[in-house]
């Protein structure tokens, strides 16, 4: 049995770009189970924090530490972008790609990709070009591609932005199934209803800092600072 790559610890970690500090210094820990929701106003650093944890941004200060060596941790996590990045291939080719990259035989990769396509509701679209999919279908494809290697942790950057209610419900069902199968979920969202439905832990970001954190079921309601309360009420918070 391979040990989990979690917990993930950020120790005074910061992201800088062009001399400006976008995030940090942040100290936090992502434990082995649950769903962490990252909320905060636009520009508060949600995306940068997720990218820092995933390794798409380098820590200009501090450290990002996994329970296993970083090289191993990098192969056991996945990321779903706000605007899904689709490869110029059909649906099956997109979903199978991470398996092929990591040495799975082509026939086996295609079989598993077809299974995942069915799981996310794209079973009828295997041979369709990814570019022809609707917004909700694109996000499902991105989810299937992210989950196909059964990552220990999945980062999602507002996966349901611009999706209708039905597509959002379907995406959430996939996320709940992934969580139940043992994948740790860390997701940035603007949808407070979604945060309420999924969160077992909440980080409220403001000006690149974790302004407040709360955990346990109903964690969103436990945010108590005036800024967090104002944000949840829908006020403009800067």
């Amino acid at each position, binding site marked *: 049995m391979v040990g989990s790559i979690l917990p993930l610890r950020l120790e005074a970690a910061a992201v800088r770009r062009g001399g400006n500090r976008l995030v940090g210094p942040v100290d936090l820990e992502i434990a082995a189970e649950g769903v962490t929701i990252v909320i905060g106003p636009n520009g508060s650093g949600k995306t940068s924090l997720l990218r820092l944890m995933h390794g798409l941004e380098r820590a200009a200060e501090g450290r990002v530490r996994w329970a296993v060596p970083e090289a191993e941790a990098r192969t056991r996590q996945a*990321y779903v972008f706000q605007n899904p990045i689709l490869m110029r291939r059909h649906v099956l080719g997109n979903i199978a790609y991470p398996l092929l990259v990591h040495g799975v035989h082509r026939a086996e990769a295609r079989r598993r990709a077809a299974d995942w396509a069915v799981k996310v509701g794209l079973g009828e679209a295997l041979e369709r070009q990814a570019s022809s999919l609707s917004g909700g279908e694109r996000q499902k494809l991105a989810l299937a591609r992210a989950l196909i290697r059964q990552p220990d942790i999945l980062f999602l950057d507002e996966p349901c932005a611009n999706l209708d209610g039905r597509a959002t419900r379907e995406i959430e069902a996939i996320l709940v199934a992934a969580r139940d199968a043992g994948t740790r979920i860390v997701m940035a969202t603007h949808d407070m209803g979604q945060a309420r439905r999924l969160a077992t832990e909440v980080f409220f970001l403001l000006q690149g800092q974790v302004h407040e954190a709360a955990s346990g079921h109903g964690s969103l309601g436990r945010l108590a600072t005036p800024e967090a309360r104002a944000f949840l009420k829908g006020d403009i918070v800067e």
Partner: protein
Amino acid sequence: MNEILEGLIAAARLVATLDRDLTEIAARSLQVSVTAVVIASALGMPLGAWLAVNRFRWRRHVIAVMNALMGLPPVVVGLVVYLLLSRSGPFGVFGLLFTPTAMIVAQVIVVTPLVASIAHQAIRELWADYHDLLISIHTTKSQRVRALLWDGRRTLLTAALAGFGRAIGEVGAIMIVGGNIDHATRVLTTAIALETEKGNLALALGLGFVLIALAIAVNILIHTLSRTERASQW
């Protein structure tokens, strides 16, 4: 005006009668140019993709030189290849001068920078789209290059076709290293140059029309085979 009409008639006559000399030099033109483009694509496309994906100290300079080499004068290339392949040159022992192989070598040198440069432009845009995904999936650099070449294959076709256009119409380099020898190294462009020198303008023009038709036919054939129009969404 009369000469153009006569040229068209000459071209039609050559094609209609399946003139043996014409068939031979057209086939040789195709053989030399297609072979050169295949080799140039095999070298230039991975080079273009590699330059798009990798960051190193002299990268900008390498790209600038590569772009500049697109305008490499074929006559100079021909002269250099001639010196390299001539009996007293370092590769003279292979006896390649005045053979189709020498013509292919010269054309590869002329075409590769063009193919690499266009491929680099195309792959650079695709890499901008794919960057975060391929990093996130933890791909190696060679896997990134392969994914970009495969997914960008329809755009890369433009690079290959541009290379073919340059190769099939090239005369300076292949004239020098091929020598325009009848039944050995004569191709359409060198035949046109010869007939023009001899004053057979109608025949030269006729061969020119055949050359243009051949280039268009190859382009249409490749577009049809690769289904670029039908698969308009990539």
